[in-house]
């Protein structure tokens, strides 16, 4: 009984890391993901802050899910999330002042990060506290890994270095002067994210092929759900050219 529960907890946790990774698979919370990931350190810091809020809000909302009437659930969720974000903001300013300055406005903006409200609405408000904790932790760690990978890639290519809390740091000498600044500019965020998502899709399709299955990428990541394409197909069939 206990081991079955643990396995369920584990699978809820693990799905956030790869299968439903918020950055690469769900493509949620893109505003902080693209804006702050100019370095590995910023990405990690942002990820940790989001994880804290996500775990806290998931647990509180799951615990209150039977008390809160469904008509006012969204305002209640927002109050809970905003409180936790303010707590993180104050704690970071006091104990990680330097990081707090670099992340700046994006810490208060965690309130509107759709990963958090999304998990509250789709998961925590329908599942027990224990499962919500696993979900929040998995999504949070998955988000952190996503931001860290994105940040490391952009920092390595964009400024030719990799810094981790000032102590462990090394520079790639080749890039010393001629680094690709584009990657640390806002536009570079989109470029880097696009490349990473493409790479992950490739890996997944290779894995699926080896297991003899067909790979279907998540619907958000291609144009299947987009009405313009379907409309285009339709008019093609009806146009005199195709007949």
């Amino acid at each position: 009984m206990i081991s079955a529960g643990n396995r369920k907890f584990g699978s809820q946790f693990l799905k956030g890391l790869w299968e439903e990774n918020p950055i690469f698979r769900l493509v949620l919370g893109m505003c902080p993901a693209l804006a702050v990931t100019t370095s590995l350190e910023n990405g990690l810091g942002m990820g940790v802050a989001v994880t804290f809020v996500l775990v806290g809000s998931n647990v509180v909302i799951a615990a209150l899910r039977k008390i809160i009437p469904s008509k006012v659930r969204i305002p209640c969720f927002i109050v809970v999330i905003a409180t936790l974000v303010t707590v993180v903001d104050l704690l970071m300013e006091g104990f990680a002042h330097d990081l707090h300055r670099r992340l700046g406005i994006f810490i208060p903006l965690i309130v509107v990060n759709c990963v958090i409200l999304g998990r509250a609405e789709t998961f925590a408000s329908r599942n027990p506290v224990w499962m919500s904790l696993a979900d929040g932790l998995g999504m949070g760690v998955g988000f952190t890994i996503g931001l860290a990978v994105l940040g490391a890639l952009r920092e390595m290519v964009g400024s030719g270095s990799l810094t981790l809390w000032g102590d462990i740091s090394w520079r790639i000498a080749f890039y010393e002067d001629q680094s690709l600044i584009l990657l640390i500019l806002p536009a570079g965020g989109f470029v880097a994210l696009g490349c990473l998502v493409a790479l992950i899709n490739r890996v997944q399709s290779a894995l699926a092929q080896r297991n003899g299955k067909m790979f279907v990428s998540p619907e958000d990541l291609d144009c299947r759900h987009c009405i313009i394409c379907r409309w285009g197909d339709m008019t093609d069939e009806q146009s005199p050219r195709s007949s």
Partner: protein
Amino acid sequence: MKETFRLILALTGVCVASGLMLAVVRGVTEAPINKARRAEKLAALNLVLPEHDNDPYADRHQTADGELAFHVAGRNGALAGVAFEVRSHNGYGGDVLLLVGVTCSNAVSGVVVLEQSETPGLGARIADAEFISQFQYRNAVETYWCRLRQDSPQAGEIDAITGATISSRAVADAVARGLSRFSSHTEEILRTGERRADR
């Protein structure tokens, strides 16, 4: 009616709990936040001020017309220098906030960038020593030098950063503006320094 009451109760309950929690966290973090802010400012002040034996962070004064707020560095009871903030709205990516230090012999003792949001790798290099140290040891009263070489070929002595003229110009103009504000209040600042010594 009963339904409405339930909704009000739930929202009020959540908000009260949230308020209590925030009050507790604020109480815990207030002291560390103030300490961190102070340490940050003090580090910047120590960079731009000449040698001193007082606490320039606490030694903050304002001119009578409220135009210039400055931190005083004292040494052996006498005035050693002052530091003041200047903000420029002409940065490429937003405001640039500078801290300028001046010695009592009217020389610039240092400039540091406190806040900037310029382009990484280009404009953000205004914070690098290579650019910002150009202002050091220069005359703080006669500020003809405080312009970009390309803007004023005869007088300007500040080399702009390649590809970041706007950011460089914002810094040079802001420093010049700060220095002219300083020189129009020199007497008052000196008086403040003397008053400190009497105390």
